[in-house]
């Protein structure tokens, strides 16, 4: 039995070795902390499968040490390229240097990294968070003609996504004198905390109307929807709900009329990443250091159809 396993392992190895053009790519993912993260992982896996790429997937369980270990293993394994979705921005220099020495290109996806020497990575595939905030801000100003008292549910303090989405949003509403953020607190990107903070907001408002809730992600927005319902108000009507991400649950909420709009934080970063790797292998060693993948605004009109699409995925 054991022999058989060994033989089959060897023959598999022989097969994969015989088609020399098959690319092996190692992908170090942060973890599976949210629905979005999971669909991101699945999207990359599906894209790899479609292109016939042998993808080595490593879930770091939210720990940078696990990510560094995984990258070192990829280098030891001699993969053709490495994709990293970094958990934090700092501390990547040593391991990227190792990859560079082994002549393995590294593509950074999603969050940014903080290195002074940008030759340490091939390119970065990421959404422009500021652009996302701007897009959803414009949608809301359009909808309310610029008259709006807004409650803001911020993301985790210090997170790039939270800071930049707020920057983009605030830049838009600054042009409308009758639009302002009247309450703002962090909901730490989670549904439970979003609900808790929204309950506090509603109490503090003491019956004074709010025009909209602007949440830095869908999870918090969904928490706010629950809190508003429990307070006897109608989310989506009495208080507009806007956010960013586009997770399936949020599309469902939009289809039900409980939420109004979101900007999709596209999980499809695998495609551009593999394109960059292909180009590198074909000889294009110097590429632009940032490929932006900002998504579109989705509203209630298409929500039901979009939800069906995403649910089936």
């Amino acid at each position, binding site marked *: 039995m054991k022999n058989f396993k060994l033989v089959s392992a060897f023959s598999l190895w022989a097969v994969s070795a015989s088609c020399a053009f098959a690319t092996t790519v190692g992908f170090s993912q942060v973890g599976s902390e949210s629905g979005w993260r999971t669909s991101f992982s699945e999207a990359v896996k599906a894209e790899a499968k479609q292109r016939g790429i042998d993808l080595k997937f490593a879930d770091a*369980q939210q720990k940078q*040490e696990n990510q*560094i270990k995984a990258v070192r293993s990829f280098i030891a394994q001699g993969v053709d390229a490495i994709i990293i979705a970094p958990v934090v921005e700092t*501390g990547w*220099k040593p391991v990227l240097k190792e990859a560079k020495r082994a002549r393995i290109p590294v593509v950074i996806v999603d969050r940014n990294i903080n290195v002074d020497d940008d030759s340490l990575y091939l390119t970065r595939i990421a959404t422009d968070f500021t652009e996302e905030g701007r897009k959803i801000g414009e949608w809301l100003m359009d909808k309310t003609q610029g008259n709006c008292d807004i409650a803001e549910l911020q993301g985790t303090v210090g997170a790039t996504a939270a800071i930049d989405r707020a920057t983009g949003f605030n830049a838009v509403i600054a042009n409308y004198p009758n639009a302002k953020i009247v309450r703002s607190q962090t909901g730490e990107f989670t549904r439970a905390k979003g609900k808790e903070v929204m309950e506090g907001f509603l109490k503090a408002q003491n019956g004074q109307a709010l025009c909209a809730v602007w949440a830095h992600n869908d999870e918090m927005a969904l928490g706010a929807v629950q809190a508003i319902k429990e307070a006897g108000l109608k989310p989506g009507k009495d208080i507009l709900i806007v956010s960013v991400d586009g997770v399936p649950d949020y599309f469902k909420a939009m289809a039900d009329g409980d939420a109004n709009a979101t900007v999709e934080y596209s999980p499809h970063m695998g495609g551009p990443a593999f394109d960059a790797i292909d180009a590198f292998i074909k000889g294009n060693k110097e590429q632009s250091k940032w490929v932006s993948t900002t998504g579109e605004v989705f509203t209630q009109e298409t929500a039901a159809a979009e939800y069906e699409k995403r649910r089936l995925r």
Partner: protein
Amino acid sequence: MMAQRFIPLWITASLLLVMFLIGSAQFEGFASIRVVTNLFRDNAFLLITALGMTLVIISGGIDLSVGSVIALSGVLTSVLITEYHWHPLQAFALVLPLGTLFGAMMGTIIHVYKLQPFIVTLAGMFLARGMATTISEESIAIDHPFYDAIADLSIALPGSGSLDISSLIFILFFIIIATVMHYSRFGTNVYALGGNAQSAELMGVSIAKTTISIYALSSFLATLAGIVFTFYTFSGYALGAVGVELDAIAAVVIGGTLLTGGRGFVLGTVLGVFLMGVIQTYITFDGTLSSWWTKIVIGLLLFFFIVLQKLLNGRKPSHG
């Protein structure tokens, strides 16, 4: 009896070898010096921490604070370097004694008030993590020529393997601790304390001095591991190294040290860490297995070793 003491050690060593052979048979590039030296480099901070944990557990105690101490040490070091522009060596010279003092204090409280090490070090765990987070919630990057020099400094081995500073620090402390444990009065006292504290006292072991030294040493090593962790990530992060105390305890148990104290080997712990590291490497090489399998396998190994300890201890579970 003599041979029985070594049974868990042999089992761990064999499992390590078997895992390595399976990996080598299955994957190209697994049986390389690079993979072996990666085990040292990637686990240096855990190895250093686990050395201290071994002592603590042999003495019949436990130290839950080490993960937080690593984070606190890393944050302090990086704040001193990045925000106060200290030279890294100056920062280490301040942080290491501070960390040692932290452990000595826990040891004193445990001894003077006759408290469970579990509770005292749990308090230490919250305290250290809380302090680290108060200093900075965000990860603080270290950008210093000294760190660049450290990253580039390593002993190259054939097969693109290399031992970096962190690995060498671990090897140095492994030799020191193993020597102390087996050839010094202090080492004998630690074993005696874990075997039976009362008879140890009758034999003339200073319980106070030994207990305080053990926790001071454990915190010293955790603080050192924190510094090594900054070499690893070039930053200090208050939320880093979460759960390292549990990995260290797991490694100690898998390495054949008796959880109730009195028996165990520093070498076993090192093998325990390597076994966990090889499992992780195997899962990364495979690339399709969920990384959570590492935890599942470690959980199963722990069950196995705890039952094994019970059986080897000769206590028949007839009354249970």
